[in-house]
């Protein structure tokens, strides 16, 4: 596959309808299985985390629907935003979200993720979570009861099973917009470690708004990448490096 971003824009998004019959059947089976084994990233972002132990442990027992807490993003399917997010935490959440592998789902727990909730006039917390990462489900309340959390999990499972929970693709298709929102908050120097554009190409999810003026900011640091030998999608950048002076004792 070409790794030139200019060409990659032309790479069409593969719609569900355009997939072959076999592909659709496989997707259907995969979704069905996936919905029954979900790992939840246990990132206690806000005060909603206090209702998670009851939800997870013996009284409400989330494990009976096939969900388990997972501590690293690479293995997790669901990112649970348990309440208000301060700007400092949001940075980490965006990093964490980008490190999760697709398909990935986000649940915003509590009113503060929906519209700022109790902290509408706080200078430290964000008001709209879906401006920064795509959100699949919201749970209203301050704070939501374990039953509500479970209900939303069941709802999400059903949507995954039916192949409807596709919000994560939006992040790749409109990465430039999301990055712009993040940069507005964190400053234009902001850049997460994950190569989202490369992943969009990989997943064939490059849309009209994947690249734009905000992603152009990322290119400023290209010399650093060369210097540090960090892998970038453009192989041409990996030029021959100068030899080290051979030291012998």
């Amino acid at each position, binding site marked *: 596959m070409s790794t030139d971003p200019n060409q990659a824009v032309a790479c069409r998004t593969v719609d569900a309808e355009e997939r072959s019959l076999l592909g659709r059947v496989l997707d259907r089976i995969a979704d069905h299985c996936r919905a029954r084994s979900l790992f939840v990233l246990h990132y206690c972002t806000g005060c909603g985390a206090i209702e998670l132990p009851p939800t997870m442990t013996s009284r409400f027992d989330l494990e009976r629907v096939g969900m388990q807490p997972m501590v690293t993003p690479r293995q997790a399917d669901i990112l649970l935003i348990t309440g208000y997010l301060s700007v*400092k935490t949001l940075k980490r959440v965006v990093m964490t979200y980008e490190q999760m592998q697709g398909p990935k789902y986000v649940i915003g727990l509590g009113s503060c993720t929906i519209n700022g909730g109790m902290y509408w006039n706080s200078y430290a917390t964000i008001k709209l979570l879906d401006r920064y990462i795509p959100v699949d489900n919201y749970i209203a309340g301050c704070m939501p009861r374990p039953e509500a959390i479970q209900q939303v999990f069941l709802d999400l499972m059903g949507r995954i099973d039916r192949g409807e929970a596709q919000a994560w693709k939006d992040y790749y298709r409109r990465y430039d917009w999301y990055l712009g929102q993040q940069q507005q908050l964190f400053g234009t120097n902001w850049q997460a470690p994950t190569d989202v554009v490369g992943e969009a190409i990989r997943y064939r999810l490059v849309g009209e708004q994947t690249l734009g003026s905000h992603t152009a900011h990322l290119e400023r640091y290209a010399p650093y990448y060369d210097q540090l030998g960090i892998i970038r999608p453009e192989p041409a950048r990996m030029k021959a490096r100068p030899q080290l002076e051979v030291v012998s004792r």
Partner: protein
Amino acid sequence: MNRELESLDAVFREMPDLKVEHTGPRRTRIQVEADALPTLLELLKGRAGYLHLSAISCVDWPDTEEFELVYHLWSYQVSNLISAHTRIPYDPGRYVSVYDLHAPAVYFERDIHEMFGVWFEGCPDQEPFILTEWQGPPPMRKSFDTVAYVNDTFEWREYQPEWANDPSGGKG
């Protein structure tokens, strides 16, 4: 009880400029000049057993352009809480640290430095703690308008739910 209060009185006798007021059970309020405060704390600690620095609070008074620093001290022996109030001007906004007397002061002074911008001479650690990634002014000052900041920085969700206009809650 009386014996302990005597020692407290001895402290007050040594510092005649104090305005002492007993505001309630086990509560004493002392108004003290800024340059006399460290001496007062030292005397309280040494003579009257006020070992426990419960908190240092800072209040912003924009009318007089002053910060009010309040040192809350508790004596385990006397079971009394002294709040020592003092005021320092905005300019230069510097004060001495009482870290050498009370180690917990370092946390509160760091916090006040972060939230109000007061500089404490001699405080060993005034690195940002909570606001490490904050670019704006010290947010606890009265001059910082948080609502205006929020309106500038964040967007509001635009929705007009039906039930908001319908006092019956959508039931009829």
